[in-house]
Every structure is written in structure tokens, then in C-alpha cells.
């Protein structure tokens, strides 16, 4: 068995968007040529601002959106090419936990029905008794006790934390290998978050899971992930060990993001790198380095021609790290 669960190569996800009823549709380059490996058993955090393509990436891997190019190899097979019953079978290996437990659960279904649904769709339970046993086991494993009573409830009877546990139970019931977790705790109160994250990490140990953990919260990514991948406008900016990326960021974009991470300490901030403006739209991706217009380092260096002319490719920068910048390096 390879130590790589997934090999994503040159992944492209483009879709058309109309900016007005009478305008021509334009191509949105949500994921724009992305390559990385997902190692078996790791937590890979995908971070970046809105529009960086992190959510689209998660959806492309679980085949919730179609890819326009590239490949995603799983055990040597290209996930993007499987269809029909085989796709359905493989989908059981990849499950998603969504952000909003208030919207992702059907209010008219009981907790039992919500958690049992994947088993019914995949026809995995041979009898009513087996179905019941597996649903109850999944609820217990997700910390919803007593399972029998919880199974009879409806989503509105549960707290936000309990709802997210239901999402986790439903995602785990097919015993997947990969969980794509898209901002799974950002809607929850801080005091509840830790328990949900801890549950997810415990289940990783128990079920030998791999997580693609999508978040905008860099300090959360730092705390739970083995590696962090930073995206900007659909491209890889930097990838490496969580601690290395946060405490030794090499790309000027990562350095800026890290410099504004809020910390629960009263102190005057120093060394904040405030980027001007906001992420441009993935419709009008500029030539050359797409971060150039907001890049503090490019400005500091007087706008080198190479930044405008050539798109930087991710290049190795030390142990297990890749950085896509012509002038990568620690600042200050």
C-alpha cells in the first residue's frame, strides 16, 4: 500500500459565471492547476481567503463538482475517470463534513434516518437489525449518548455541537478513508469547538482516517494539522509542516497571513503585514504572479520584471516544503 492516499496532478476546475443578464459568461478559474499529495493518515489543512479555491478543491475530490482537467489518483486509478456504479462505490471512501450543521441536516428526518441514509443508498446493511446496530454504534462513536434516544430526535432538538456530531456520525458510517471537512467548526462556539475537533482526531486514530481540513483559521490549522497548504486564487502558494509554515513562512502571502493571526493576548502588535485590497476575482487572473498586485515584497523590491512576466511554479524549499515565489525566503 502506497503511503499516498491521493495524488492530485494539475487539477483544473473552471466554471462559467454570468456577471449580468446581458453579459457574456466568463470563465471562473476556481482551481487553476493544482498538484499535491495527500498522505495516508495525515491531516492536511487547506487555508486561504475566500475565492482561493479551497472549498472547490474539496468538492472536486469528492466529485461534487466536475473537474475540467488534471487527475486525482487513488490507488493508481484516476478518480476523475470513474463513472456509474464504480463511482458510487468509491464515493463511500470519500465523505464530507460541511460547515453549517444548521443547514446540512434535513429538518424533517430523524437523526436515525440521517445517519442511516448512506447505508441505505450504498445497500450496505443486510438486515434491519444490522442497520440499527450500525447507526447506534456510529452515534455512540460520535459521542451522542444514549444512542437509542438520540436516534429518535430531530435536528431542531439538538445543539449546534450535537448536530455537528450527527454530521460526523453520518460521514463515518460507511467507514471512509478520506474525510473532507469544510470549516467543520467555524459555526460553533469556541468552547464547543475543541470537543468536536478532538472527536475528529480520535476517529482518525481509531478508523485510520485521512483528513483534508479546509479552514480560513490559521491558528486552528496550526494546532490540528500535520501539514498546511496555502492557496491563492486557485494556485498553491506554499505547503509544508504545520509548524514550519506558521513559524517559518517562506512566501510573502503566507508571511502576511501569519502576521495578522489574532492571538488571545493583550499586546501591541508589531510586525503586522497588512495587505492592501482584497483577493481579486478568479475571473480576472492577472498574468505573471497572481499575487503580485498585493505583494509587499514585490513592492519592496521595486516591482521586478520577472513577477509580471513569469508565473512562479512551486519549487522545493527544504524538507517536504514547496514554495511558489521567485523571491521566496524568510523576511526580516
Amino acid at each position: 500500500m502506497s503511503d499516498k492516499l491521493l495524488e492530485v496532478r494539475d487539477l483544473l476546475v473552471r466554471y462559467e459565471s454570468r456577471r449580468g443578464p446581458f453579459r457574456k459568461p466568463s470563465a471562473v478559474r476556481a482551481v487553476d492547476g493544482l498538484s499535491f499529495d495527500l498522505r495516508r493518515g495525515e491531516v492536511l489543512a487547506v487555508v486561504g481567503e475566500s475565492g482561493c479555491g479551497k472549498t472547490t478543491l474539496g468538492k472536486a475530490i469528492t466529485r461534487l463538482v466536475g473537474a475540467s482537467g488534471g487527475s486525482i489518483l487513488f490507488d493508481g486509478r484516476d478518480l476523475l475517470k470513474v463513472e456509474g456504479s464504480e463511482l458510487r462505490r468509491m464515493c463511500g471512501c470519500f465523505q464530507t463534513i460541511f460547515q453549517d450543521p444548521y443547514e446540512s441536516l434535513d429538518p424533517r428526518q430523524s437523526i436515525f434516518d440521517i445517519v442511516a441514509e448512506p447505508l441505505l443508498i450504498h445497500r450496505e446493511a443486510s438486515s434491519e437489525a444490522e442497520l440499527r446496530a450500525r447507526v447506534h454504534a456510529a452515534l455512540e462513536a460520535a459521542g451522542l449518548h444514549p444512542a437509542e434516544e438520540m436516534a429518535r430526535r430531530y435536528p431542531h432538538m439538538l445543539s449546534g455541537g450535537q448536530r455537528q456530531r450527527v454530521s460526523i456520525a453520518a460521514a463515518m458510517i460507511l467507514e471512509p478513508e478520506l474525510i473532507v471537512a469544510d470549516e467543520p467548526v467555524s459555526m460553533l462556539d469556541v468552547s464547543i469547538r475543541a470537543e468536536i475537533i478532538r472527536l475528529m482526531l480520535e476517529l482518525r486514530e481509531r478508523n485510520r482516517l485521512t483528513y483534508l481540513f479546509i479552514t480560513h483559521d490559521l491558528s486552528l490549522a496550526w494546532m490540528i494539522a500535520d501539514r498546511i497548504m496555502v492557496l491563492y486564487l486557485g494556485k498553491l502558494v506554499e505547503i509544508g509542516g504545520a509548524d514550519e509554515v506558521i513559524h517559518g513562512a517562506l512566501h510573502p502571502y503566507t508571511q502576511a497571513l501569519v502576521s495578522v493571526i489574532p492571538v488571545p493576548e493583550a499586546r501591541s502588535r508589531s510586525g503586522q503585514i497588512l495587505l492592501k485590497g482584497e483577493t481579486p476575482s478568479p475571473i480576472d487572473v492577472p498574468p505573471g504572479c497572481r499575487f503580485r498586485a498585493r505583494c509587499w515584497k514585490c513592492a519592496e523590491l521595486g516591482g521586478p520584471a520577472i513577477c509580471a512576466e513569469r508565473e512562479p511554479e512551486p519549487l522545493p524549499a527544504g524538507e517536504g516544503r514547496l514554495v511558489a515565489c521567485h523571491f521566496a525566503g524568510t523576511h526580516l
Partner: protein
Amino acid sequence: MLLEMQDLCVRFASRAGDVQAVRGLSLSMAEGELLGLAGESGSGKTTAAMAIPRLLPRNATVAGGRILFDGEDLLAKGEPEMEALRWKAISVVFQGAMNALNPVQRVGSQIAEAILHHEAATGRDEARRRVEELFELVGIPAARSASYPHEFSGGMRQRAMIAMALACKPRLVIADEPITALDVMIQAQILNLIKRLCSELGLSMILISHDLSVIAETCDRVAIMYAGRLVETGGAREVFESPAHPYTAALLGAFPNVNKERVFVAGIPGNPPSLIEPPRGCGFYERCARRSPGCDEAEPASVDLGGGHVAACPLARGGSR
């Protein structure tokens, strides 16, 4: 003192019974202060703050207490008097800038409208000029005042909301979760803007947030609420460096801190109590790791730790040392 809330109680009527959202809150702030009001959902922070300009939902009643603004009790005032104070003396930056602007009206004219409504003597040209000044002040090019909200990015909409709150030169601004739902970089930009405005204009501001990190690095003073009560207040430095209430300490411990060792944060098991039948004693009793018998029987007295640092827990005196 610019603002003094004394023993404020607010209730919400609900089918299940009255929810006692704010239960005897006493809190004051000086002119020019940037006060952070923190707490989790349901702690009563937004309700307490919105009681000041009397902008509570219909089913809410102020059941007791006083709100002294510049020495005058706002709760004793009639609606016309409050109407005169709103926006001119006390204004609000509402949560969710995306939905707070009218989508079919140009942003600049929405702000001009607020000025014209509250300051009848102002002419249209004067109002337009003020809008352009306000735009520059919050960092939007004046020319963009003719844009519609959908042409603005999220950060610019939030800046416009801040401009609108400042339109009639208020003395107190209440900002309700002004950076929630914005990107990290935009959050930092808006917080810097808020800090700059407060020091340049001598504004007093209440910054409501569930995020202690945001309050820690922005505010001079902090007040932390739980289950409708104030659990701790004090200078930001004192409270964050030596939290005296077990809830404050636990909540602080729930935030990852990239300046410290990489450890897994501890959450706070359990849920806040129901405020339909609020507990007799300490609201945090059920979740408190340091509780002792008796904590659930009577409401804990406030312990004064000096320098305006107060915590509602008998352990406070020993705990903060």
C-alpha cells in the same frame, strides 16, 4: 463616566416562557474608551448593548435597572427623545454588513439620507460633501460613493457601514461583531481602522465579539458575559494576563495561540444553562472545573481586584495571583 449600566435586566417573551437574557448587568465606560464586550452566543452581550439605543426586538422588555448616558437615564426617556439621540449621540455598526445596506440605492446616498434624516438643517450639497469626507476617513475613494452595494467587496461594505455609523458624529458607537464573516486580512484591516478612528476622533466604542483574540488586541478594557451576567471586567492586559474568573480562564484556553507552545486547546464541556429558569447560583456552575459546594446556591459576590478589575467568583482573589 459616559455610560453606566446599573443592574440592567432584559427579558424576551417566548412560547416556552420568559428568557432572562440579561440578568442584572452593571457596567460603566469612560469617554474615549474602547470597551470589548465578549461572550458566547446567548450570553446576552448583544442584548445588553442594543438596550442602550433601545434597538431591541419587539418581544424584548427591559425589566429593570438604569442606563445612564452622560448622567441621564435613557430608560426614563420617551421614544421621541430616544429617536433624537439615536445616530446623533449613539450609533450602531450592525452585524452582517452584507445585508444591512439597501441593494437598490447608491451607498453614498444611503449615508446622505441618514445625515439628512437626523440633521434637518443640513442641505443636500453639505450632506454629499460630508459623505465624501466620511468615505476618505474610512479608506474608500470618495468617487465610489456613487456605487451600489453589490459593487463593493465585503471589506468595503463594512467600511461603508462604519462611515454610516459615524455620519452624525456620535459620541458612542456600538459595533456588533463588525468583522465576523470577513477574511482574515480584511479583519485585520477593519480592526486597524477601528483603532485609528477611536484614537483620532476620540470616539467611545463598544466592540461586541465572541472572539477574545480580536478583543485582546483591539480594546482598552474588556467585559466578559456568561448566561446573562457579567463574569469579569477589567483592563485588557490584566484580564488576559491573569484571568480571575474560571470561565474567562477556560474560554481563553479554548483559543489556539500561535505565540505559545503547540498544544491542543481544552474546550469547555457542557452547554450554558437555560435562561428561562436561570440557575439560582453561579451560571457557570455546571461547567466549572473549580466549583465548590455552595456555588450553586447563591449568586457569587463580585470580588474587586483593584484597578477596575472585578470578577464574580469567590476564587478570584486567590486565582489571579
